[in-house]
């Protein structure tokens, strides 16, 4: 076994920097959770591991940059994949000028559009799960993703992105979201309208939405 160095202890998984056939690689290990019933825990970790491995590869085939999967160990809930050595988008948003912000989020919108058009929803779109690296935007963390072309699932995906922008980047969330939508429309074309309508419906469905928002402002 190659040498392993702990890169990051996330909420769900530990990431180790290691090597695979002389290439820098990341081992993502979904760790046991003491707060969950053991049967439930192994089901959740196992299904997310295989789900993520499949979707990472499929997303790349759709033209969405993702790490390359080298191997999957379903029993130990591990994925070995290529290393994207850069910090997440979250850390750059605060320092972006308006043009840079618009450009970046238009590209994020295009990326999500490609994914949706190809029949995948990501399930956890946040700026922590997007890594700008060598001129590309990489998308990671597909554990909550799904194969689906449902308007509802696509709508929830975008709703979550909007919410993540509002909670983590409240100063620029409206501008970022507008650019995101622009990019999404560019790829999805007419398919985008029912989805974006649904995003507003999902938001209004949410708890305690004020009257203006309910009217669909």
């Amino acid at each position, binding site marked *: 076994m190659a040498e392993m160095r702990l890169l990051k202890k996330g*909420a769900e998984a530990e990431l180790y920097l290691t090597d695979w056939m002389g290439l820098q690689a990341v081992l993502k290990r979904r760790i046991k*959770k*003491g707060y*969950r*019933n053991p049967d439930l825990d192994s*089901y959740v970790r196992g299904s997310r591991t295989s789900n993520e491995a499949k979707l990472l590869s499929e997303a790349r085939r759709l033209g969405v940059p993702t790490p390359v999967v080298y191997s999957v160990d379903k029993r130990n809930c591990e994925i070995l994949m290529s290393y994207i050595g850069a910090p997440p988008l979250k850390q750059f948003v605060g320092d972006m000028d308006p043009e840079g912000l618009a450009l970046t989020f238009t590209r994020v919108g295009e990326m999500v559009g490609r994914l949706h058009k190809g029949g995948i929803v990501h399930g956890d779109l946040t700026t922590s799960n997007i890594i700008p690296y060598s001129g590309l935007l990489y998308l990671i963390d597909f554990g909550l993703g799904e194969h689906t072309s449902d308007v509802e699932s696509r709508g929830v995906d975008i709703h979550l992105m909007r919410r993540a922008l509002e*909670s983590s980047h*409240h100063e620029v969330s409206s501008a970022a979201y507008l650019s995101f939508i622009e990019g999404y429309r560019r790829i999805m074309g007419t398919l985008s309208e029912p989805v974006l309508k649904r995003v507003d419906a999902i938001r209004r469905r*949410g708890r*305690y939405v004020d009257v203006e928002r309910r009217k669909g402002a």
Partner: protein
Amino acid sequence: MNSVQYILGIESTAHTFGCGIASSTGRILSNVKSEYVPASGGIHPREASQHHASKAATTVSEALKEAGLRLSEITAVAFSAGPGLGPCLRTGATVARTISLLRKCPLVPVNHCIAHIEIGRLATGEDDPLVVYVSGGNTIISAYSGGKYRVFGETLDIALGNCLDTFARHLGLPHPGVPKLEQLADEGRKFIPLPYVVKGQDVSYSGLLTMASRLAGGCDRRDLSLSLLEVAYGMVAEVAERAIAHTEKSALLLTGGVARSKRLQRALSFVCSDHSARFHVVPPDLAGDNGGMIAWTGYLALKEGMTVPVEYSYVNPNWRLDEVDVPWRR
């Protein structure tokens, strides 16, 4: 001259009509409540508001008596202006307006969700925690940032407490159902797979409730209760863990009526020890809806001049937590 101020708080968002009195020194001097218990089924908003109207006068006078104060010693009156059930909110607001007019003292509208957070901060002394607020009406993961409490995760449909209460009624357990559900779960052995739905930082409980209710006839109810609670609490714990990793807060505060659950406390304390965060639970007597939390939050708002003239003192049944400015946190 006595510089201590006394704020009277009225709570009436749902089941509970509560009146509490807080001092400007951060003490809850009294906290009296009267709870509407439906004869069958869930809460009926009109019946609940009638209950509140009939109990208002005695609840307020008891609260004053317990605090050893006269109405003339009250500096301001605060009330839950939302979110909640319209008829219940209007009853509480009417009581508050009456006192304000009678006493010619300021009227302070308070957001119910913020009050659950503020009373938790006061009682535990934790200044800036990640908040897990779980009750019959709300399931919210929130933290303070830039002048407001931001929502990092919430339910996409029904609240955690609503899911558990409804399932308890489905099993025929008498009110209050959740403690009895927990007792049943303690005797459960086998885990029955149920829908575990986490979407990003959000959770969904409606599918879980439907599935558990469908299985109720054909499964051991102890096993089913165990499985329902494990799935329901596991989902909250997971999104709380994601939020604590994301926000890097060094403490977690569990508040709201469902905070009394030992099983949920255990799950969240696991999360905290994994992330080296301090774990706090609001004391049981301040966990459910109460007037004391409204009074204390009313004091914080009063200091910032956030009062409202009686003629503009509308309630807002859909008042979101993340719309409210909280200048006292700056």
